[in-house]
């Protein structure tokens, strides 16, 4: 690796350390057999990846990774690992011996060395080595879209470029992405008992009082952080997805500490809030062509500069709520105590 390094090695030391830690964490997320170890490895991988994004100066992506990739995903996977009815070892000796009775006698004691694994690792090594060689050979051309992007930023109504790209230039893409998250929430509700809301009426296990106090202390801070991420997104790092992840973690904490309102009071709101963001997004996209001068051909999902800020902000607020509710529904359905519909 010394060939990659700049002459001033001291500048490269953090990168090397972070990279090696990333590889170790990836190993921890891939190799262990216990499910809890896998989930914990993935949690650390998410945290380290957030640091890598910060190292690459992408604060937005770092926040999204810390909130969504590290936080919510880690919570879902750790929960799933803990609540697994039995923890079958992946590639355990029994599984392999039943499916591959002809392989060598060594497998029962060291099943990691069976031919299938060896072949897979060899193919992966060849593929990885080839890919790395390719990166050295290719011509490193930079993307050519930076200048047109800067010229067009004034028409978006926001000053932060990433939010502008997400909600103005690639609005169609963001709409579909929010729809994917909403549909995942809907699918999860369909898989859960009683429309996915059965868990809301179940009694929660008792938690230590220290946790309750912690939640009371953290909840206002989390709410403030979520709102700040949402409103700062128009001019600085942040945005609907990061904010939604923080608000979802707030909901999870409140639920753990028995602080959520009763099911009777929350249930009427959950479905409208889940789909509200996407519906308003579509309606706001339709307003542009409907109100536009008929002589000007106005594409849908494009907004006049004078009210682009209002449109983008209101869409973003509702999207954030929808994202938070959708993520919370995934967590809620996982809580199903029997795991059976």
């Amino acid at each position, binding site marked *: 690796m010394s060939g*990659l*390094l700049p*002459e001033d090695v001291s500048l490269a030391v953090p*990168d090397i350390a972070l*990279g090696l830690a*990333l*590889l170790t964490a*990836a190993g921890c*997320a*891939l190799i262990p057999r216990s*499910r809890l170890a896998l*989930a914990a490895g*993935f949690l650390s991988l998410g945290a380290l990846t957030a640091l890598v994004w910060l*190292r*690459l*100066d*992408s604060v937005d*992506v770092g926040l999204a*990774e810390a909130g*969504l*990739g590290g936080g919510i*995903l880690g919570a*879902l*996977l750790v*929960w799933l690992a803990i609540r*697994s009815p*039995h923890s*079958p*070892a*992946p*590639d355990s000796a029994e599984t392999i011996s039943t499916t591959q009775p002809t392989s060598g006698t060594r497998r029962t004691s060291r099943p990691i060395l069976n031919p299938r*694994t060896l072949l897979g690792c060899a193919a*992966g090594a060849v*593929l*990885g080595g080839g*890919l790395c060689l390719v*990166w050295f050979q290719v011509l*490193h051309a930079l993307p050519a879209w*930076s200048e047109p992007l800067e010229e067009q930023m004034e028409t978006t109504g926001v000053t932060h*470029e*990433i939010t*502008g790209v*997400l909600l103005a*230039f*690639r609005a169609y893409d*963001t709409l579909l992405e929010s729809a994917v*998250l909403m549909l*995942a929430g809907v*699918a999860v509700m369909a898989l859960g*008992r009683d429309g996915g809301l*059965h868990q809301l009426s179940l009694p929660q296990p008792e938690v230590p009082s220290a946790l309750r106090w912690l939640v009371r202390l953290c909840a206002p801070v989390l709410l403030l952080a979520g709102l700040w991420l949402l409103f700062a997104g128009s001019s600085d790092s942040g945005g609907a*997805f990061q904010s939604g992840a923080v608000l979802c973690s707030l909901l999870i904490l409140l639920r753990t500490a028995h602080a959520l309102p009763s099911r*009777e009071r929350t*249930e009427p709101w959950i479905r409208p809030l889940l789909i509200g963001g996407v519906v308003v997004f579509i309606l706001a996209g339709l307003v542009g062509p409907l109100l536009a001068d008929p002589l000007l051909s106005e594409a849908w999902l494009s907004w006049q500069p004078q009210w682009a800020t209002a449109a983008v902000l209101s869409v973003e607020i509702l999207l954030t709520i929808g994202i938070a509710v959708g*993520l919370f529904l*995934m967590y809620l359905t996982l809580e199903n105590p*029997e*795991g*059976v*519909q």
Partner: protein
Amino acid sequence: MEVFAGEGAALWYLLLGSLVAVAGTVRLLLARDLLARLVAMNVVGIGSLLVLLSLGARAESAAPDPVLSALVITGLVITVAFTGLGAVLIRRIEGIHDAEHAPDQAADGDQISSGQNSSEQDSSSTEGGRDS
């Protein structure tokens, strides 16, 4: 050497991303455990996003490429969506194995399970929710 030094960090993460993605793919194809597969899919996602963003970080300017950053955020959201759905599916698959009378419940789960678990309370609260 100047240009090479500027690109060094991006190239390092580019290589790391490729290796992580390949390792995740290998694990995804070899694992039998469902949770291990789900985690491996996420590792592949992290590796490919790392490749994507370090491709955008090769420029001399400190600011990250907004187009690629937005694409990476999109990728993260999609990852969370499929992982959440996959986690619930895994929970349901294994839950059915775990139950005492698995075949019946798998066939018509709705009626049986809601009948077992305080159907009165469930139905009344559902109606109340739909009215308001």
